């Protein structure tokens, strides 16, 4: 288990224990965090799991994949620290991760 802090668009913070190997998207959906839909189920094919990674964690979460890059190009309000939550799998190293959720995801 590793801790993830989701900061919802309305400012509400949710701290959730996510099993290692499970994605940041799945951790939110399974725990009713609002602001991540995950329509495609984690296949990098819908961009409804858009998150902003806190700067302090950017290096640790790694780089976008090629498909992720093409999907993010079309997401609304993409920034440098944008990632798709389904493409970040939790590890010990990421325990404490902080992500912010964009407007416009449910």
């Amino acid at each position: 288990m590793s801790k993830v802090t989701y900061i919802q668009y309305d400012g509400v913070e949710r701290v959730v224990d996510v099993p290692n190997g499970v994605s940041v998207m799945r951790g939110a959906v399974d725990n009713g965090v609002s602001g991540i839909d995950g329509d495609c189920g984690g296949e990098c094919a819908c961009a409804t799991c858009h998150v902003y990674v806190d700067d302090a964690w950017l290096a640790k979460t790694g780089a976008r994949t090629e498909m992720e890059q093409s999907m993010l190009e079309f997401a609304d309000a993409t920034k440098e620290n944008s990632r798709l939550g389904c493409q970040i799998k939790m590890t010990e190293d990421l325990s404490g991760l902080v992500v912010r959720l964009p407007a416009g995801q449910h």
Partner: protein
Amino acid sequence: MNIHIDAAELNAAREQANSMPLDKIDVSDPSLYANDTLWPYFERLRREDPVHFAENERFGKFWSVTKFRDIMSVDTNHQVFSSEAGGISIAERPAEFTLPMFIAMDPPKHTPQRLTASPIVAPANLARLEGLIRTRVAEIFDKLPVGETFNWVDRVSIELTTQMLATLFDFPFEERRKLTYWSDIATTFPEPGAMVETFEDKKAILLDCLQNFTKLWNERVNAPPAPDLISMLAHSPATRNMPPFEYLGNLMLLIVGGNDTTRNSLSGGVLFMNQNRGEWQKLRDNPALTPSAVSEIIRYQTPLAHMRRTALADATVDGKQIKKGDKVVMWYISGNRDDEEIERPNEFIVDRKNPRHHIAFGFGIHRCVGNRLAELQLKIVWEEILKRRMDIEVVGKVERVLSNFVHGYTSLPVRVTPNAY
């Protein structure tokens, strides 16, 4: 009520679907969609031949991809499965006259064009539109005849989607039905008996359409920027110098994309609530289920039955060898009934565990850009129905579109009763 009258026809179709030689199954036959007997044919394909080859006179040779996962793997492999090489529908594009639209482009062309269209349907703009949409829905509902039979398709579904388009473009409101007309013309293949019979006629109508929009462009370009699509295109550095036909193509794509699809989801929802009174009751008892019911309506309807790709290289899909140049049809309508991906897929359930997990909007880089707008419109409509405690009873024969692409209705006779519960 005769909404179940098709049961005998469906049973006959099931018998035929299960007894005919597998290689004779052809899910492209438009009559299967008009009489709603497509289901058993897709059931058999998903079970016995999920990536299926067929050939006929009208559409030539094509592969049918019928399972959710396989469709997703084609949809997300845009490097191999092109939208540009042969277009996005099973019917071949007429070489004579085709408007450039980004739905039928591959990267790199697709990318900047999609980016210009997306702000119009981005959350900030939708929030701005919500109040206006609600007002217009309310006006339509408040004028519905009570205790009289009328066609929901024309009176509500078409009217509402047309008003939405007029709003998005800030198009002269009184002339709004022109938008629906142009959309229908743009998607009609000219042939005798069709809405438009020759390519010349089609081109002339679309040129008239272009003139209308050019006039609006000229007005907007000289006015301060406004949040309607035409003003956005006229003021954005990326699109200011767009060639006329590309401008028209972009407008048409938004009109076409948002027209039949939303229209038929609006009609489908009413039909499904009638066929499943228990689910209708659930929603009445708990209006908080509306967003989930909306996703379920879209899945259950699947307003676009398929999208087509063309293979740019040899590839394997679920064990089948696809050759470079082959036509590959992704049947979303079948993927949305795949029981390996969706539990009890043939049932309409307004409180599913995971209602957004459906394939009606496609997946990958062409995934529907207007999906939030579509969901918003449907959500407002059902909220306003519930607010008025309105019952909508289907009281006559349901008629469906003769098409394997646009999956929808031409007639849905209903009677409405406000304050019914």
